[in-house]
């Protein structure tokens, strides 16, 4: 049951070692940097140190209470991430699959729109636009 914000890469296999012991169902989500048809070579991710950890921990604890999770983990990276690199991961463990899936989706919906991260596109010619929030991400929160 932990949230981490870090520059360094992470290894999903290593993160899952011993994760959710006693659970019947483990769900992971990981987000990767897409090249957007060659437009991007990397993303630069900025965050709000201090608030980020608080927010991720609060969402993790809320998900654990709501979906009866026996374990959860959130890792989100910042700094420059090349195409194909992992940006973040969420893992949830519960007795049954429905709770594990729902908790992972809940966490992702909150993270996308409520955790203080901002992505900037880095193209072949250098830094480009800040990624704009998608209205669908905001709408996704209404289901919870």
């Amino acid at each position: 049951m932990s949230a981490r914000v870090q520059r360094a890469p992470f290894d999903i296999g290593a993160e899952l070692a011993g994760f959710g012991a006693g659970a019947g169902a483990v769900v992971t989500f990981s987000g990767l940097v897409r090249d957007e048809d060659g437009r991007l070579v990397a993303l630069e991710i900025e965050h709000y140190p201090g608030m980020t950890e608080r927010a991720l921990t609060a969402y993790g604890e809320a998900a654990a209470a709501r979906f009866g999770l026996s374990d959860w983990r959130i890792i989100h990276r910042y700094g420059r991430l090349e195409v194909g690199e992992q940006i973040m991961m969420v893992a949830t463990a519960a007795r049954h699959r429905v709770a594990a899936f729902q908790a992972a989706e809940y966490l992702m919906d909150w993270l996308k729109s409520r955790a203080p991260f901002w992505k900037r596109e880095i193209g072949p010619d250098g830094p480009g636009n800040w990624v704009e929030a998608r209205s669908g991400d905001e709408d996704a929160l209404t289901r919870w």
Partner: protein
Amino acid sequence: MAVDVLYFAWLRERIGQPRERIETQAATVRELVAQLAAMDEWHALALSDLSAVRVAIDQELSDLDAPLAGAREVAFFPPMTGG
């Protein structure tokens, strides 16, 4: 009172600095925004479209009409795009 005001992403770039300490009598975030926007053209530009600005008070998401009393740190930033 004095508050630390933080800016992130394109708000930080338009304003030209990541944080500044501001003396203010503002009662709400909205009044603080008005004070900041009156400081110079960069602040005015960055804060011109408040529909694109989110705010946190002491590292908790808040809104423009929230009271500022007791706040130590107020942050302005665009809609988040993590995940």
